[in-house]
């Protein structure tokens, strides 16, 4: 690797102060699994300094707060996989975390890092989007909070300024226990980027799709929602046909590209299948009482 400096932040305030001090020459290291792999083969000049925020104490931890389920940005994928709190309140998050990379990378990689890297195929994005997650960033101008969707700008581009860091992700209280599921299709089951991934969530009072959310990855410049498919489902009785039709509509909303991993056509077909499966998976998490009403 090319030479660079290293400094570890003890907390988020320290991290922001360090970023202010080093300016654009600084690069934030969260888990490091993407950053280090990039730095090793990058033709570009290295950063002056890498600011390691993985040890910032206030960026850790999974907890229930007044606002909802709070994930510190430095929570690792493994912590999400093994969290009893997540298993209970938002199991789809664990479903998405367990298919990221492999054990070794999940032990290092963080949810914040995954979101900020902002590759279209990220596995953390769709489920959080489907649960209307909100994120908080911290910078020299203070904290600002926004919906997750506003963080994503384009491939490897976020709305974060160079001196800001993502500090937490919150799944709002009203969406805890909302039936949701995540689906991924890669060329292998493990250690593969998603050709397409998808997440869905909805409530099913009286067997009717209510507040449905469908999010897609790897089929657009960023992770996206599928509003037309959501609109189609809203108010419609829960049925397999409706789920399949929502998948077909979502496929028309996807804007996939052809690359060496798959063709756009193949990816679009995958969207239809994965959305249907995600909806079915979410329905599997609907409480028995709601299910009776739906059938």
């Amino acid at each position, binding site marked *: 690797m090319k030479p660079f400096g*290293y400094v570890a932040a003890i907390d988020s305030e320290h991290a922001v102060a360090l970023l202010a001090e080093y300016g654009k020459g600084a690069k934030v290291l969260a888990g490091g699994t993407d950053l280090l792999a990039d730095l090793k083969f990058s033709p570009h000049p290295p950063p002056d300094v*890498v600011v390691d925020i993985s040890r910032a104490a206030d960026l850790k931890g999974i907890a229930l707060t007044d606002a909802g389920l709070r994930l510190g940005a430095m929570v690792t994928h493994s912590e999400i996989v093994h969290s009893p709190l997540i298993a209970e309140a938002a199991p789809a998050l664990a479903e998405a975390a367990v298919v990221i990379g492999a054990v*070794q990378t999940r032990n*290092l990689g963080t949810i914040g890092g995954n979101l900020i890297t902002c590759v279209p195929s990220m596995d953390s994005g769709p489920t959080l989007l489907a649960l209307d997650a909100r994120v908080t960033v911290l910078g020299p101008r203070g904290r600002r909070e926004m919906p997750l969707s506003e963080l994503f700008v384009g491939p490897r581009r976020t709305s974060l300024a160079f001196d800001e860091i993502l500090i937490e992700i919150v799944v709002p209280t009203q969406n805890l226990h909302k039936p949701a599921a995540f689906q991924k299709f890669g060329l292998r089951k493990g250690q593969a980027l998603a050709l397409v991934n998808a997440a869905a969530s909805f409530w099913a009072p009286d067997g009717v799709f209510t507040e449905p959310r469908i999010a897609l990855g790897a089929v657009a410049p960023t992770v996206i929602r599928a509003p037309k498919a959501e609109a189609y489902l809203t108010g419609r009785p829960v049925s397999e046909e409706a789920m399949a039709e929502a998948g077909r509509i979502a496929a028309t909303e996807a804007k996939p590209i052809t690359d060496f991993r798959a063709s756009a056509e193949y990816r679009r077909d995958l969207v239809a299948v994965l959305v249907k499966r995600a909806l079915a998976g979410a329905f599997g998490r609907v409480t028995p009482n709601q299910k009776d009403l739906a059938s």
Partner: protein
Amino acid sequence: MIVTLTVNGELRSASVPPETTLLVMLREHLHLTGAKTGCDVGDCGACTVIVDGLAVNACLMLAAQADGRTVTTIEGLATREGLHPLQKVFEETGALQCGFCGPGVIMTSKALLDHTPEPTPQEIRTALTGNLCRCTGYVKMIEGVQEAAAMMRSPQSPALAGQSPALAAPEQK
């Protein structure tokens, strides 16, 4: 910068450039060459070591990130009394052919067995997704991990019993 680690129970320090990965520090500064450089981007798992109880790719971690932590490498598994059950079983099942992926596979498996003493074959497969092998294949490794798990669960470990103490005088013929 000075990085200090507890490696295999010993406190070790080295002065390394900040961009040094944990893998380079272990191999080139501490001369622990058991962890291997296979792909250097976290795909192959040949560099797997255990940091604070978790298996990680040493190539994707800066040495500085591991400062003050506890690191276990393949060199730290065997004791003077005998091999670790995984090492013993991998030898017996023929799970190591060219052996280049072996240290990584064994360390990943050890981290698995530390948390999951009774893994199912599927759990073993999931745990080993980050370890590539080109010669042996995975069947013998999965068998090996299962056998080692059984061995470690039984109080009278047959792997460790009946082994000649390391420093005993050679037998007279």
